[in-house]
């Protein structure tokens, strides 16, 4: 690297910040489109029409109708709110709780760290889906219990990552400089640690979001999550499973919706990860 003359144009802002802004705008636009579509569709998600059952895709019903004659397209759009929204909430709970636990462990003494991290390991041992099935068994299957159960097992990866990143940052020169300048531990955490752990945590967050979409829909499909007639994609599949031989569209479209959403979020996550990696090596 060489010195650039002082009058050189200011380089563009942090590419990561730019990406985050673009992503937020895209999501807002998609949410807006979804709202518009829900307003434009002539059907309600639970509006049955017994004369028009199991009909294949047509001009009136772009994605066909299900066994009760409900419009599958409309239900898929409402399902987006459940399948994507619930998992977004769960992943965000994991992000917040995990970051707090991980950073606390990094800031505790050896004993506190051991206690917090072995607790994390203990929770980490439970495969999410199995924990959620057990939780549903104890408290009864419902949307609320699904969100609680998956939230309880959503934070451990964040805790581990936040802790190891914080440990790495503690040894960095700029944190030492801050300590020498008398900056308090809280302010160091806020100003120096948090901004430098968040990008990697966000990569994990997109990852968790897409994995949770799969968990939510799987659990609903198995009957332990969101219950029919709510238009969650997994629940729609469960509902339509007996009719899939005569009307395959009833199971094709909800599954495709899950697949495409997870694929899209993974692609965004990959791009985010590449950006963070590029910054870390810069």
């Amino acid at each position, binding site marked *: 690297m060489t010195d650039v003359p002082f009058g050189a144009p200011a380089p563009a802002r942090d590419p990561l910040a730019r990406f985050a802004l673009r992503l937020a705008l895209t999501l807002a636009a998609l949410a807006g489109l979804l709202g518009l579509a829900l307003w434009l569709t002539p059907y309600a998600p639970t509006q049955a029409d017994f004369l028009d059952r199991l009909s294949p895709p047509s001009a009136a019903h772009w994605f066909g109708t299900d066994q009760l004659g409900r419009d599958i397209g409309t239900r898929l759009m409402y399902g987006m709110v459940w399948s994507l929204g619930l998992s977004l909430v769960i992943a965000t709970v994991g992000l917040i709780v995990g970051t707090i636990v991980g950073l606390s462990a990094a800031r505790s003494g050896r004993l506190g760290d051991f206690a917090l991290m*072995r607790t994390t*390991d*203990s929770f980490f041992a439970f495969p999410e889906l199995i924990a959620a099935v057990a939780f549903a*068994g104890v408290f009864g299957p419902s949307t609320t219990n699904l969100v609680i159960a998956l939230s309880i097992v959503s934070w451990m990866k964040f805790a581990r990552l936040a802790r190891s990143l914080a440990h790495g940052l503690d040894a960095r020169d700029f944190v030492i400089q801050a300590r020498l300048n008398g900056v308090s531990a809280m302010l160091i955490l806020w100003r120096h640690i948090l901004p430098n752990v968040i990008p990697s945590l966000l990569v994990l967050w997109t990852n968790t979001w897409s994995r949770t979409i799969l968990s939510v829909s799987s659990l609903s499909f198995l009957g332990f999550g969101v219950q029919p007639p709510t238009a969650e994609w997994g629940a729609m599949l469960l509902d339509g499973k007996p009719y899939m031989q005569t009307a395959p569209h009833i199971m094709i479209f909800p599954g495709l919706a899950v697949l495409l959403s997870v694929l899209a979020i993974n692609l965004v996550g990959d791009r985010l990860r590449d950006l963070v990696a590029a910054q870390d090596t810069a």
Partner: protein
Amino acid sequence: MSPTALRLIGLVVVLLGISLITFTLNHVAPGDKATIIAHARFPEVMTFSPDLLQDIRAEFNLDAPFAVQYLHWMSGILRGDFGTSYTSGVPVWDIFLGSLGETLSLTLSALTLGLGGAFVLAGLAVRNPGTWVDTVAVFVASIGAAMPNYWLALLLILGVSVHLGWLPAYGEGTLAHMVLPALTLALWVMASQTRLLRSFLLDAYAQPFIETLRLRGISEREIFFAHVVPHARAPALTMIGLDLAALLEGTVIVELTFARSGLGSLLAGSVLSRDLPMMMFLVMFFAATYVIINTTIELLQAMSDPRTRRIAGRP
């Protein structure tokens, strides 16, 4: 204290943590435990006499405080007594053993098939970078990572059983019944591992000693099998260990979707009939399996320290 000893102490602490979490879940379960047990035992009876409930409370030590109940339960586990199923009155261990074989054979055959496929696909991809094989590998990996496996199961049933009529869809008994479930799980294992294996193999190819080997005139084939694959083995093994949780989850989903017996159906069945001892045992079994296998992999890796081997492998 040596790192190994510390790791083993950590393992014991984590196993205790798992038991505590499971027991707490059982303890906070809503409803009167005695009534739950009575319902499970006598499914056709609607109301129970106070005497019967009192007997059940005494039998299961239900009136003692939390710590006492936990210690009582733990001491049973240490003696190999994992409790008795509420529904059948048979020790849960016996029921578990009866279903373990089904699940193990499904999981292991899927794992073998899937890992084999992933290895071939990833190997072909890294040895032919930029070709259609590489593109296919990346495509399969991306789709596979996003594929809900219950949906894949339904698609296979629809395609292979319903339309082609080649294989039975539901149930079990013959080898033919095993094909679709194992294939579903294997495809998913293959997709998820291809991506990782490909990146580990690429990492190995990026090592400086590979170029030196090429300059020495060693064949690409020998470089791949004698140097690249061993280099990628350690990280791959670690990742497979960490992905074990997903494999266990996948097994549960596949068993339930194909209506097969096994630990997954056992778990679902115990949840539906509120057979808490059975459920607790299975949940603990899955968690403990995950922790023990991962600790073992970690310790094995530490013992055969890949760093020393890597340096030794450098010409």
